[in-house]
């Protein structure tokens, strides 16, 4: 039995404790903003916040989330106005958009820890998140913009 909070809502799950949060969120809770990319923690598309830390939900089991708070892209901001989301729109960052929820969750967690990351810190923090459309230059610029306040 796992008790967790998802986007502020208390939930209980009594099935397989090894169920990755990715599939719990997508298939059980129908929160499809968190994306499946590789299933082995190398692409970052499934990044969510677990007690505020960016984690790969494909490698995080529901048992590991017991007693913790999960935030997905849908819960990052009630109106899509998180500084990172605003910066992303302002710079037209997304292309296909599939990896963007993971990128945004990673960037938001970074800015919570570090309000003014250096260019090197941005690159290091974002290097686990793949983007096949190659939006990297804009992702970098948008993180910097969000850090400066949009």
């Amino acid at each position: 039995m796992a008790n967790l909070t998802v986007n502020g809502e208390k939930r209980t799950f009594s099935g397989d404790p090894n169920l990755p949060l990715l599939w719990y969120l997508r298939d059980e809770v129908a929160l499809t903003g968190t994306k499946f990319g590789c299933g082995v923690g190398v692409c970052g598309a499934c990044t969510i916040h677990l007690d505020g830390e960016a984690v790969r939900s494909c490698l995080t089991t529901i048992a590991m989330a017991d007693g913790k708070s999960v935030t997905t892209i849908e819960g990052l901001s009630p109106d899509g106005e998180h500084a990172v989301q605003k910066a992303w729109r302002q710079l037209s960052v997304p292309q296909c958009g599939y990896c963007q929820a993971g990128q945004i969750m990673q960037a938001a967690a970074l800015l919570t820890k570090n309000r003014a990351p250096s260019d090197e810190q941005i690159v290091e923090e974002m290097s686990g998140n793949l983007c096949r459309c190659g939006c990297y230059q804009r992702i970098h610029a948008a993180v910097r913009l969000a850090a400066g306040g949009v």
Partner: protein
Amino acid sequence: MILKDWKPETASLSRRRFLQASAAVGGGMLIGWVDVAGAEPGSAPAAEFSPNAFIRIGLDGKVTVISPSIEMGQGTYTALPMLVAEELDADMAQVTYGIAPPSDKLYGNPAVGGAQLTGGSNSVRGFYKPLREAGAAARQMLVAAASEKLGVDATELTTEKGEVIHAKSGQRIGYGALADAASKLPVPDKVVLKEPSQFRIIGTPVKRLDASGKVDGTAKFGIDAQVPGMKVATVAASPVFGGTLASVDEAAALAVPGVRQVIKIDDAVAVVADHYWAARKGLEAAAPKFNAGPNASVTTADVVAALAKASERDGAVGKSVGDAAGELGKAAQRLESVYENPFLAHAAMEPINCTVHVTPEGCDIWVGTQVPANAQLAASTALGIERDKVRIHNHLLGGGFGRRLEFDFIVQAVLFAKQSKDPIKIVWSREEDIQHDMYRPYYYDRISAGLDPKGELIAWKHRIVGSSIMARFFPAAFQNDLDSDAVDGAIELPYDIPNVFVDYVREEPPGIPTAFWRGVGPTRNCFVVESFIDELAAAAKKDPVEFRRQLTAKHPRARHVVERAAELSGWGTPLGERKGRGMALLFAFGTYLAEVAEVSVNDSGEVHVDRVVSVVDCGQVVNPDTVKAQLQSGIIFGISAALWGEITLKNGRVEQSNFDNYRVLRIDEAPKIEVEIVNNGEAPGGIGEPGTSAVIPAVANAVFAATGVRVRKLPLKADLLRAT
């Protein structure tokens, strides 16, 4: 799975399309095309007006453009609405997009033979005129409605930002208030389009219309489909192409909590469950075994050996000017090289998926596809039901790159779903996605050229050997054994060479399906041509930029991008030890592009691309911000391929499986990219693919400049480039 003997729906030349308008359900105006089969030019349209076609103007003034092309990142859901909005004089803040249902007739792209197909950098090129005409016709009707309403002559009225304006009286009426009346007026026979100097939207950097959903998690991709009663399934197909399913431990799969059903088809098994994880566990428990079939021992080396042998055959002639063979014989200096392009997977971020519900009444399919009309036809053929009983609900594509031009996975999903009473969402694992792709074919090119005593290029001979994608995908483009894609980017060179001979030899690899990949033919050919041009420059003891400059004297657009890219890159200034610059020039998709890559090669031979300068002349630019984004995107995509991209076969099986061994570029490996756009009002060229095509040889040439090693076989493997 591959459909054999498949023929896509081809466009009928006798078909005519007419603009027609009608009232919208719930108020407002619709304008779009009706299709009349076999109609003579000038005859009146007889078909029912389709309420889905193209443009809707609501009572609130909102303009919805049903985009005939599908969005997969390239920005088409912004660029195509901009074309309509320009001639309509709409306010971009009031403009939105919709996804088109399947119909070649209504949404076929004139640039691709009238097929409803998004690919080949054709969307803006194909719809530049028709969408503007539709917008202009709607505007004229709104003006006519305002003229009636105000009792003034239409010539006294102007339009701006979604309003008709009568300057004399100071009256302004919003389009929403005119839409009902306008919908009842006749559609003008002829419309006058704006001159580029009158553009207010085209050529300006408009923010993406699809960005909001993509940053707040509400954007729906195929994999996000939610259907009541839906189960989730995952699949294992024969690891050897052409193999069949031998056995499955069904009981073991069903013993996994949450597993509901095991479904078998000829070459694959699906485990259906309450959620993907249970399906995955169930599939592992099922431990499917396969009969490998005739391709059980195929290796990449076999494929390459067959291509090398085929390269000794004469091919279908793609171009013959002057006497290339004769002049080569007389040349003062003669160079000959073999170039190889490997198999590549697409590896879009969204793994292959398809949700299907088959009922006695028909079939619903939720998917992201580049070819909705063909997908509908393929599904109806697989089910043996009428085409209109298959409903395709198309979604955003989490990357296409050519993979979602194919419908193998849709047919597979339909065959599984036929055996399920519940709707099923089939999601391939990343491993399944990489190992059951349809791959960019392996190509083997023999190229030779001759220089005269002054180092002038006098003769050029290029033989291209590989799989014909067109022969399968679009037979009309495979005539007399010549594949138009295979030679694209090899026969219309932006260079002045007096004697040219290019031919193509078709050689199909055993046991591996082939398909289009970003940049299609030009991506392969640009690597060969531009690497070889660099070899010739070195042989002629000329600077690679100067060599290209001299060859482009009769191609001013090409010469301009070469000169600007050289200038912006600081060409000729020193970079340091094991660093170098390389240039490549591309003319393809109606676009001229020069790219200069700067690389560093470390002592272990690993290449880092530090900077790419890109100067593009794609004629009339619709959205400069998208043009920049597409070049940035294409360059990153191409660098991944240049440095690491390679699919190999062993025992008939693809050896790569996930992003850990099919490596793609990360942000810490990405170069600084600079883009300059030449906006010269020429016909619009394509922009989704050129960036990828040109950067691969630019990087290879830069590696030569840095190390002196000429790599003629991609990817640029480190073991060839180690410091000695």
